[in-house]
């Protein structure tokens, strides 16, 4: 095992990694911007290095500063968390070039999965179904002929897109013509690549993802699914496991596909294979996230496995601590992301938290770096806490989550708790009848098409 690692992140995930390190006896180095000097991840780490000013591009995305911090503190490995540099193949390569172990998969796997067209090609080769779509389309003519084959409605998608950007729903040839150049221009500006392709737009689908885990000795397991269909404009609001939509047969089929996808690229460490599941129980690969997810505690809740400790052990060259047959799911787990946002408009509401009291009692977990009298910074993500409930069945997990959110005291700022409570009392949600369009009932008009991959925990990585 490593003696010391650096955590290239902030907030609750940085703390989460510190907890795992402490349980394994690994020393920790926190890095922080000037805005985060008083943050809990700084207080609880064994060492800390200020790496730049508040702006993320000059601190948490500043590869040179992070590598230097690892070098001056003698860290052996870097855990990137989620967001920031977690899915930067370039960063992973620089780590390895500097003799620092990047705690995650191989840089080449990160690069392939970050390129939607290449990922799709890899899945086609591995016989994992993807959403019907085209190859890259450049001209209007290519696009139109590809669209005829797929059928409308369809999506124009930028290869490098994410977070709802570089994505457009079109329902006719006229709209295709009108929006193709627009999406290309947008993508070119945002991602420095204007490559786009077309994809069938599926209606009434669910977002169901599988947690997979590989080691560097060729072992690979899955840890069941997470249901993530409760999204608002591609932001996940609530995740749970198991999915109310899966039975044992479908679960086994989807798990087999997830393992096939991960196997095809020789995947090591924690990863997530995301699928769209339609009403006919057909499912399509949409993407693979090559990092720990925000919602990993849901899987920890039903399996009892500590995913971050497993990440560290696997990165240190150990074998997976369990076989597939050791992994048994118990009960039901659910996560609500509490964001410092207006619960109606979902606009970020940074500010100072004046009172903060987290709920306790059985079957509850709260991961947070917030505390009384702390400042929710306008510079970073608005998520201030994750509440995870566990029950012997879905009804118990829901009632537990409800009383947890009702008794979570956060004063001084607005949070999404009222919105979450509305979801938790919705009869369709309680019955398990929902798809990715669920949240549109609570908003006037969706700005982007509902559905599929949420990228809230993936931050665009600037070329460094």
């Amino acid at each position, binding site marked *: 095992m490593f003696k010391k690692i650096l955590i290239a992140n902030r907030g609750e995930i940085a703390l989460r990694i510190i907890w795992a390190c*402490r349980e394994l006896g690994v020393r920790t180095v926190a890095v922080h911007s*000037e805005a985060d*000097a*008083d943050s*809990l991840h700084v*207080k*609880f*780490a*064994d*060492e*800390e*290095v*200020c*790496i*730049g*000013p508040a702006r993320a591009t000059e*601190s948490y995305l500043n590869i*040179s*500063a992070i*590598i*230097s*911090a690892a*070098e*001056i*503190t003698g860290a052996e490995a870097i855990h990137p968390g989620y967001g920031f540099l977690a899915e930067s193949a370039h960063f992973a390569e620089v780590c390895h070039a*500097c003799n620092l172990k990047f705690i995650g998969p191989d840089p080449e796997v990160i690069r392939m999965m970050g390129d939607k067209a290449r990922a799709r090609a890899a899945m086609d080769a591995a016989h994992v179904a993807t959403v019907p779509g085209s190859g890259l389309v450049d001209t209007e003519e290519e696009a139109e002929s590809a669209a005829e084959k797929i059928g409308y409605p369809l999506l124009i998608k930028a290869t490098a897109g994410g977070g709802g950007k570089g994505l457009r729903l079109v329902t006719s040839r006229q709209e295709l013509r009108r929006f193709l150049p627009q999406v290309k221009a947008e993508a070119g500006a945002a991602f420095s690549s204007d490559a786009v392709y077309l994809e069938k737009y599926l209606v009434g689908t669910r977002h169901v993802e599988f947690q997979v885990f590989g080691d560097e000795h060729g072992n690979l397991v899955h840890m069941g699914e997470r249901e993530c269909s409760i999204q608002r404009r591609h932001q996940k609001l609530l995740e749970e496991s198991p999915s109310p939509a899966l039975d044992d047969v479908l679960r086994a089929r989807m798990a087999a596909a997830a393992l096939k996808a991960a196997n095809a690229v020789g995947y090591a460490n924690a990863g997530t294979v995301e699928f769209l599941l339609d009403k006919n129980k057909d499912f399509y690969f949409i993407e693979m996230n090559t990092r720990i997810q925000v919602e990993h505690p849901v899987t920890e809740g039903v399996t009892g496995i500590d995913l971050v400790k497993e990440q560290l052990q696997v990165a240190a060259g150990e074998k997976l601590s369990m076989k597939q047959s050791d992994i048994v799911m118990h009960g039901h787990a659910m996560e609500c992301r509490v964001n410092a946002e207006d619960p109606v408009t979902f606009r970020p509401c940074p500010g100072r938290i004046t009172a903060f009291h987290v709920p306790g009692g059985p079957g509850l977990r709260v991961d947070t770096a917030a505390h009384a*009298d702390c400042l929710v910074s306008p510079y970073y993500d608005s998520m201030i806490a994750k509440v995870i409930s566990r029950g012997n069945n879905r009804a118990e997990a829901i009632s537990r989550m409800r009383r947890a959110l009702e008794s979570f005291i956060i004063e001084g700022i607005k949070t999404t708790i009222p919105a979450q409570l509305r979801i938790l009392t919705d009869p369709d949600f309680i019955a398990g009848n929902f798809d990715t369009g669920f949240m549109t009932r609570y908003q006037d008009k969706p700005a982007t098409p509902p559905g599929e991959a949420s990228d809230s925990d993936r931050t665009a990585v600037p070329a460094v």
Partner: protein
Amino acid sequence: MPLSLKEIHDLIERISRSDFSCFELDHDGTKLKLERRSDGAMQIVAPVGAAPAAVAVPVAVTAPGAAPVNPVPVQAAPAPAEDLHEVKSPIVGTFYRSPSPKADVFVETGSRIKAGQTLCIVEAMKLMNEIECDVDGEIVDILIANGQPVEYGEVLFRLRINAA
């Protein structure tokens, strides 16, 4: 009426959580002065009046489990007088006072410096970054020892700026 012990505790707590480097109070029989050393710990310099001796211990602003604070002797890092100019590290890395192990140091305490003159090197990712002075002046303090790591924003030098 002088402040109560509780009130002084509250003040200390409050100032500890702030980023002020110095706090002075003269209030009806209570004089209190707090100074922050460069390592981030607060030191109670002169509790007088109602403040009992029991509070006259350094208040380390660290959480349980955090790395121990290495107290820097007061002589090594005196608080800057009001006219001292600070040169901070613009990057994370290792601080070197000379261009190579056997070469002479760039500057010494007392050296007279022109703006643009190299003060030191900070090595980051095998690159030697020369740190230049942004003012004309005289070196008063060199706060980092040769070969030591520096953070972003850490004060490297203090200079007395030349009178115009």
